[in-house]
C-alpha cells in the first residue's frame, strides 16, 4: 500500500506540475479568458472538514490496536460522515463553478476539473473502503492482533487528506498569490 501511495502521489505531482507548466506557458493573465479567480468561501469550509477527518481515522486505528472495537466503529463512522460532507460540499462547489466555466471552456477548466475530480474520486474510493471496514468491524472481524486492513485504509485516508493540501495551494491559492 505504501508503494501504491508512492505511485499515486507521483501521479498527483505530475498533474500539478502540468498545471504549472500550462500556467507559465500561458499569458500574463491567469486564469485565462476572463475566468474569475477561484472562490474560497466553500473551500474554507471543506478543507478543515477533510483535514480534521484524519483525526477520527487515526483514533480508530489506535483504538483497534488496543482491541477497542467500539471506538473503532465510532471513529470510522465519524470519518465517513466528514468525508461524505466534503464530497457533498465539493458537489455544491462544482455546481456553482460549472455555471462560469466547464472542462470544455479552455485548458484552465480542463485542469481544474480533472485535478479536483481526480482527488474527489480518491475521496470516494476512501469512503468505499471505509464502508467495507465498517461492515467487517460490525461482523467482529478485527481485533488487536488482526487489524492490518484498518492500518492500510487509515494510511490511504491520510494520504488523500495530504494531497488536498497541495491541491488547495496550487489550484485555489496560487492564482491569488501570482497575479
Amino acid at each position, binding site marked *: 500500500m505504501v*508503494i501504491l501511495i508512492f505511485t499515486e502521489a507521483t501521479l498527483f*505531482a505530475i498533474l500539478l506540475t502540468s498545471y504549472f*507548466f*500550462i500556467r507559465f506557458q500561458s499569458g500574463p493573465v491567469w486564469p485565462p*479568458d476572463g475566468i474569475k479567480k477561484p472562490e474560497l468561501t466553500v473551500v474554507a469550509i471543506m478543507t478543515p472538514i477533510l483535514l480534521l477527518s484524519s483525526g477520527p481515522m487515526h483514533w480508530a486505528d489506535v483504538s483497534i490496536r488496543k482491541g477497542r472495537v467500539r471506538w473503532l466503529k465510532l471513529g470510522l463512522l465519524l470519518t465517513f460522515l466528514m468525508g461524505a460532507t466534503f464530497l457533498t460540499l465539493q458537489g455544491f462547489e462544482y455546481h456553482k463553478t460549472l455555471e462560469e466555466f466547464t*472542462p470544455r471552456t479552455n485548458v484552465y477548466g480542463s*485542469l481544474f476539473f*480533472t485535478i479536483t475530480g481526480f482527488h474527489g474520486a480518491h475521496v470516494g474510493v476512501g469512503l468505499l473502503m471505509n464502508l467495507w471496514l465498517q461492515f467487517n468491524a460490525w461482523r467482529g472481524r478485527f481485533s488487536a492482533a488482526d487489524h492490518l486492513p484498518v492500518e492500510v485504509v487509515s494510511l490511504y485516508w491520510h494520504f488523500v487528506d495530504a494531497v488536498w493540501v497541495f491541491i488547495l495551494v496550487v489550484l485555489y491559492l496560487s492564482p491569488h498569490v501570482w497575479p
Partner: protein
Amino acid sequence: MAISLAARLEQIWEEKPGLGSWLDTVDHKRIGKRYCYTAFVFFLVAGIEAMLMRAQLARPDETLIGPKAFNELFSMHGITMIFFFVTPMLFGFGNYFVPLMIGARDMAFPRLNAFGYWVFLFAGLFMYSSFLIGEAPNNGWFNYVPFSDKHFTPSLSPDFYTLGLLFLALSTTVGSINFIVTIFKLRAPGMSISRMPLFVWAILATSFAVIFALPSLTAANVMLELDRRFGFHFFDPSRGGDVVLWQHLFWIFGHPDVYIIFLPAVGIVSAIIPVFARRSIIGYVFLALATMATAIVGFGVWVHHMFAVGLPNLAMTFFSAASLLITIPSAVQIFAWLATLIAGKPVLRTPLLFILGFLFIFVMGGVTGVMFAAVPFDQQITDSYFVVAHFHYVLFGGAVFPIFAAIHYWVPKMYGRMMDEGLGKLAFWLMFIGFNLTFFPMHIAGLLGMPRRIYTYHAGLGWDLWNLLSTIGGFVLGLGILVVIVNFMKSVRTGAVAGPDPWGGETLEWATTSPPPPYNFLEIPTVRSAEPVWDQPELRDTGHAVHGRQPVLVGHETLGTSVMDADAESVIPMPHGSYVPVATACGLAGIFAGLLTGIVAVTAIAVGIAVTATLFWFRVREEEEPGPSVVVGVAP
C-alpha cells in the same frame, strides 16, 4: 521425516492439472512461464511486423506495403516490443526466479501476480484487436499530439493506444509493487540486503523506476483521452493547451522506461557472468549502486529526446550534462563485468556467448548514445535512421541478447532439460551477424540524411545499398531466432537431463530440483553468503532433504523477514488458487472495451463483474483452513 514432509508439502502446494487450475493458478513459476510465453509470442508478432517493414524498404520506391499499413506496422512494432515484449518477458523471468533466488515459496501477493498476468494478456489482445477493425495505432510509439487528437485522427486508433496502455499500466504497476514487497519481506533468513543476488537488485531498481515513471504516461494518456472523448483542451493550443506538454510527460516516462527495459537485463548479465567466469563477480557493491544510480539519474535526462523542439539553450545544457553523466554507471558496470571475465576462467557456453555479444553491441549503442547528449549533433541526427540504429543497439543489444542468454541459461532450471549447445551456438552467430548487418548500416543511412518513419524513399540518394543490407541482415537475424525456437522445442522434450545445478551456479535457484517443486524448497534455506550455493554445501540438496537446522514451514505459507537484515519475523499464510484474479481482469477488460466503443451497457456489466470480483477478492479469508504454522528450529 523428510519423505513425509515432502509428501505433505506436495499435497498442499500442488495444483491439479486441468482447465480449472490453468485459470486459477497463483504459482509464481507457472505465471512466470506464462509471462515468458505470451511475451515471446508478442516478440514474434512484432518481429514479423519488422520483417514486413524491411521488405518494403529493401528497395527505393517499393510499393509492397502502402503508407497506412507501414505506419501501423512501425507503430505497433514499437509499442509491442517495448510494452508487450521486453518488460513482460523480463517480468516473467523475475516472477520465476526472484522467489527462487531469495528462497521464498512464492511472490508476496500471489493472486495479485495472477491478476497482473491476465491484465497483461488482455491488454495485449485489446491492443491487437485494433487490427481487426483496421484502426491500429499509427502514430508511433510516442503518439505525439496534435496528430493523435480527435481533429487529425478521428479514427479509434489513438484510443486503442491510450486505453490499451492505461490498461497495461495496471499490470506493470501491480507487478512492480509485488516485486518490491517480495524482495523486501520474503528473503530467506540471513540474506541481508548486501547478500542479495544482483538480478534481484536489478528487479528492485526496475520496480521502483516503474512506480515513479509510469504515472507520467498514465497522466498523459488520461489527458489525451479526455481531450479526445470529452472535448477537454490539455493539448489544444487554440484554447490555451500545449502540445509540448505531451512530449514532456511522455519522455519523463519514456526515458526511465529505457532503463526499466535495460536494468533487468543487466541483472541477467550479472547473474550469468560469474557462473561462467567461475569466480565471484568483481565490484558487487559498485554494480548494485550503479543499478540504483542508473534508475535515479534516468529520471533527469528526458529532455534529450526534445532537443529539436526549440527549447532554451540553458535548459538543454543541463540535460546534456545529465545525459552524459548517466554513462558513468553503465561504464562502471561494463568494466566490472570485463574485470570478472579477465580474472576468471570463462567457459564459452551459449549463455556466455550471448552475454559477450551483449557487451559488444551494448558498448556500440552506448557510445552512439553519448553522441546524442551533444546537443548540436542531436539536432542534426535525431529522428534519422541513426537513432533507429542507436536504440536497437541499446535495446536489442542491451535487453534482447541478455534475454536470449537467459533463455539458454534458465531453460534447464525451468524444464529440467539442457538446450542443445550446437544449435545454441549456431543461433548466436546467426543472431549476432544478422543483428549487426541489420542495424549497423542504419547508422550510415541516418548520417546520409534518411529520416526515420518514412514508408518509402527515392532512388539516387545514396541510401539504397544500406537499406538492402539492412533487409538482408534482418532476415538472417530472423533465421537465428527461428533456430532458438527449434532448439527450445526439441530440447524440452529430448534434451539431456539437467539435474539441479548444471552450470555450477551460486544463487539459490540452483539449490533445488529442476524444475523446482511447487513449494520451491523443502526447507527455507538460511543464507550466510552472497554466493550461498558455492559457500554452503549443505544447501545443494535443499530441494529434497531436511537438516533440521533451518526453519521448516509445513503449511501453505512462507517466511517473512526484516527488510535490511532478513531476520525471520513472521510466518505468512499464502493464498490458494483462485478464479478471482482472472474474473477481475475480465471485468476490467470489459470496462476498457466499453470505454473504447462507448457502449454504456458493456461498461456497466463489466463494472458489475469487476466490482463483484473485487469484493470476493477482499472477502475475509476466514474460511481457509488454518495452516499449522510450525517453525521447526531456527538457524543459529
